[in-house]
């Protein structure tokens, strides 16, 4: 028994040791996972110190492939990531996580998150890590890395359209982009005001567009329920998700009566989200959370 105990202890020790060694090796920044829990020094780019502000804005411009670069900030390497469809997106905000001197020759380290938004309200973010120094008015960024930062999904848009319109889409006509499907849904959707005109039960497609980019391992769900309770997911089995480059659209097709004045049989469409592998915080807090609730009847 005692020997077994020692054996288990040795194994645990060795495994812990091997884990520590792996963590100590500086892996290429391309594969570095974003860190969820970090203190925030500035929640708005305008609150950042001047030098950090200029560095973050310049690197953000690089990510956007924009020409709006500060002439006084010199980047000594090209940006490892340039946002796909960068012309669609514009800078939204940035947050500063750390900004401190790292040695006596004046070099500073900077950790920040920067966020972008497109005309539909789609968002995505990147974590920036940079080492820079100031030379008079000029700032020289010696090296920097950029990795995608996934935020808690919270923004959704819901369209309801006749199921026939949605079912018309086939492999040839199904839009190839988020924009395409968004537009198709919006064109064919009915407004909430029109809903009361439909007094009979009929087939509808409820489409919920998640506007925040999610990691592959994140979980999104769309449920139809007669309760507004955020812990009740309702019926989620027949809903399906379409994913365009990380942006997801949940579709639930069913037969029901739409929003009626004074309805005593409420029906809700609910969108749920839980973060993926990128989440390194408290495992007990990594649970599915309701991010939107649409009263459809």
């Amino acid at each position, binding site marked *: 028994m005692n020997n077994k105990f*020692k*054996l288990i202890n040795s194994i645990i020790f060795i495994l812990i040791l091997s884990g520590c060694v792996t963590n100590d090796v500086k*892996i290429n920044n*391309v594969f570095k996972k974003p860190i969820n829990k970090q203190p925030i020094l500035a929640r708005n780019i305008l609150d950042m110190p001047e030098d950090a502000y200029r560095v973050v804005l310049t690197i953000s411009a690089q990510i956007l492939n924009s*020409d709006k670069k500060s002439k006084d900030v010199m980047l000594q390497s090209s940006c490892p990531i340039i946002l796909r469809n960068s012309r669609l997106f514009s800078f939204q905000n940035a947050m500063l996580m750390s900004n401190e001197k790292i040695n006596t020759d004046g070099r500073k380290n900077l950790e920040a998150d920067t966020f972008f938004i497109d005309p539909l309200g789609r968002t995505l973010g990147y974590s920036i890590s940079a080492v820079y120094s100031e030379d008079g008015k000029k700032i020289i960024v010696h090296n920097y890395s950029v990795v995608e930062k996934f935020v808690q999904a919270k923004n959704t848009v819901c369209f309801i359209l006749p199921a026939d319109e949605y079912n018309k889409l086939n492999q040839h006509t199904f*839009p190839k982009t988020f*924009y395409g499907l968004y537009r198709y849904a919006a064109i064919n959707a009915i407004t909430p005001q029109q809903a009361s005109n439909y007094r009979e039960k009929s087939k509808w497609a409820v489409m919920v567009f998640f506007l925040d980019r999610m990691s592959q391992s994140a979980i999104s769900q769309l449920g139809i329920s007669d309760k507004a309770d955020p812990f009740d997911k309702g019926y989620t089995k027949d809903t399906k998700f379409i994913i365009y480059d990380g942006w997801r659209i949940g579709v639930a097709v069913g037969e029901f009566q739409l929003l009626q004045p004074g309805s005593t049989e409420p029906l809700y469409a609910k969108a749920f989200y839980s973060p993926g592998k990128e989440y390194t915080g408290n495992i007990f807090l990594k649970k599915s959370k309701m991010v939107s609730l649409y009263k459809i009847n």
Partner: protein
Amino acid sequence: MKKLIMIIVGFFVCMVSFAYAGSIKDMPSAIVGQAIGYAMSHESFNPQKKINVKILNIQDKLQNYLIDRGFKLKSVLIVSHEKNGKQFNVKGSVIHIDSIHRFIQTGFDARCSIENKTTILVNKVQLANNSKPNTLFFIVPAEKIKSSDLRNISFSQALQQVSSVAKKIDGSYVGMDYRPEKYKLIAFIMNKIDDPDSVYPVVSDAPFANGEQGSLIETADGWHILLSEAEFGYNDNNPKYFNVLWEKDNNVLAFESYCTQGLIKAIQTALLRNGYDVGISDGKLSENTELAVKKYIKNTKFHKDTQISSSLLWFMQQNNQINISELVQIALLKNGINIGSVDGKIGPKTIKGLKKYQKRLDIKADGKITPELVLLLLQTSKNIDVYSHIRTLFQEPILIKKYQDKMWPNEL
């Protein structure tokens, strides 16, 4: 005995962790991207680190993808990557650029595996060309260019021809009669796009709006030019907008919008920043503005015949310390034309060099230093990236309809 086995197993796990971490360290996705990019443009690839990237079975496919050998790899963009043990997928794009700054952006999706610590195998690559149109805009008097002419020449010849006649009327120039005239609005699509037929120009009374549709011209070498005709007078109260629309997956997106009146306003702003008195900055070519333009042209040592144009605006938007004479001399040297020493004085040697350069480009060899000529010099000089500055003309895209009334309210 069991203890010994477990220690050996633990040690093995430890070593595997070492080896695995070491190979990841030497496996940046960017190197795979670079290898793909160089393979496409027939350039040799010498990574800084001693890593061997083998691209299996697809070398021919990659080399056939970029037919034009004038394009060189400009940058590699890594969009995403996934790894699963020694296998990893890299998605990104490579940008190739040629001497007149046309570019080709190609998306790639590569499945790779780590052979050993110094070798990466690229087992499969899928390529896709999915760039948005990027255009360079000119306004030309209608009679100066025939659209049929543009079809029969190469893209670079068309660019030179159009820019040489556009300079006289691009924007409006000093002493011009502002009565409405017929113009051709021409935009060169500077990048390769998936489906050129999905791009079309319109002339409208509003920016980013739909309007009277123009045409798409394919040049002799397979590149594309957008062309519209319109009748308008500069600086009158009815500006026209040349909007580049792109039909993409049932969307109509307006990516670029050029105004026929905005130039004067921009010129006034730039002159004000350079300390010139332009009177009221109202977008109209007032006497004060004309005078300020003349002063600027004289002070920067452009030729006295220089007219208001977007090229002139570009120089105005640089800092006011710009020394055109010196810039021209350096640019001539960088173009391989010997003009003696760089002294900032335009003497016979420099003018001779300018004429030689103009002859080389097959344009009128008059030796006059105009903004258009200096821009051409800069564009053809090595190591000078001019277009990145010129592209400030681009606007953010606007989705024409947003359908907000159809959204259902979120009760949360």
